[in-house]
């Protein structure tokens, strides 16, 4: 079990990243808080020593994505979340970024992880493949299809690699 200090440090370091993943998965505050607690509790319980910071980050990402997916799958979430809560987090996004985020959020679920990991976290297709448990070529095609959709939505501006 990790010490409190370690966990607090991890919270400071990864909170933003986890929040972003939660954002594009869950889109509301209460659920995000639940996920935070779950992820850091797991982190605290996790005995394995990470080989480096990248390893830890990737572990965090994977655990967060799993936690979000589990949460979405869970019976209570499916049957109790009121509709008006779903989009509440978008309201706090600054005006100028909202269009892009809305476009990303409207993507089918399978594209969101690669888009986020590639464009924000800067992972390569090979790394994304490792994190998501997909083949590298699958990640390439997911990314290119997602780009196609985003281009259409955001008015044909070129999206760089």
């Amino acid at each position: 079990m990790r010490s409190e200090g370690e966990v607090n440090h991890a919270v400071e370091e990864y909170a933003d990243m986890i929040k972003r993943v939660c954002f594009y998965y869950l889109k509301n505050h209460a659920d995000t808080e639940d996920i935070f607690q779950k992820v850091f509790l797991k982190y605290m319980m996790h005995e394995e020593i990470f080989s480096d910071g990248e390893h830890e980050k990737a572990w965090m990402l994977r655990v967060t994505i799993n936690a979000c997916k589990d949460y979405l799958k869970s019976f209570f979430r499916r049957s109790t979340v009121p509709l008006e809560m779903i989009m509440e987090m978008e309201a706090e996004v600054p005006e100028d970024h909202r269009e892009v985020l809305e476009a990303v959020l409207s993507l089918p679920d399978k594209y969101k992880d690669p888009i986020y990991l590639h464009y924000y976290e800067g992972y390569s297709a090979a790394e994304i493949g490792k994190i998501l448990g997909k083949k590298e070529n699958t990640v390439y095609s997911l990314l290119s299809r997602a780009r196609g959709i985003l281009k259409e939505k955001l008015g044909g501006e070129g999206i760089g690699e």
Partner: protein
Amino acid sequence: MANRIHDAFDSIQADDRLKETTKQFIQARAGKKSRFIYRAAFQGTLMFACMALVLAAGISGYSWIFTPVSYVSIDVNPSIELALNRLDRVVAAAAYNKEGEEILNDLSIKGKRYTDAIEAIMHDPIMQDYLQDDSELIFTVAADGGRDDRLKMEAENCSGHMGHGNSQSISVDLEIVSKAHDSGISLGKYYAWLQLMQYDDSITIDQCKNMSISKIHGLTKVHEQHESHDQDEVHDQHNTHEQPDESSEDSLNEQDFNDHESGQNEEDMQGSLNEQDFNDHESGQNEEDMQGSMNEQDFNDHESGQNEEDVQGSLDEQELEDHESGQHEEDTQGSMNDQDENYWDEYDASGHNSHHYEGRH
């Protein structure tokens, strides 16, 4: 565009409040590892317990609904047996011969109330063919205590049953059901065979299978007649010893009473006294036969309540009447046992028991 996506995501940041609550949560949880594990284990157990409960409820509910607890067998020539659950609904209908199968093929009576099922069977055109005037229609009911009387009464009230003159219903022990099923014949026939066995054990169940119920009853009747001729003496003695003083007194009283009141002759009353079988009345046997056959049958008859019309069944009433009328108290005095024996002797000697009464009066 790449930058736009990056910037857009960058604008999302965990606020301090979120970080703080998470830290507090972790703090609160630190050192409670065991509880966490317990909770996970507990959830699993809870889920398992719930599933087990639902499963158990399902199984017991299923068996509650689908376990037969009572049986109604309908025998004419077609032999049909209905198995009823606790709610008196038909859970299974079995035919024990070809004729029965023909009838059941056309009907779907599963799940119906058994009275409806009986009505449906009775009104089936194939069944109607068998319900001729000379055929017997026998309902045999096997159920646990408390249920059998009601089942029998309701079966009797069914119009099919009422419309057929030559019909009767019998209630038997539940134990007979399994024996009957082991032998592959219906309850009613098995019971009829048991009765026949008392007189003639050369007839096997297999032979019974192919007989109609009226035939089995007919055989029984023939044997009853023979038997009663042979055993008159034995039965008479048996009767005298068995019958308690009081009841003989009552019976005699009642006979006296009827002699005076209605002028009914003694022979008829004698028949009633001995709790004669329904069939005996029908077949018009003479009084000697009737008298002889009382020993085994009176119990069965009594149980099934066939002889409602019998005077013996309503002894108490008649006793009351006797007292009310106040006519016969003198007659009952004296040694009843002696009278009884005299009476039987006389009866045997003369074949006509009216002598006895003439003597007494």
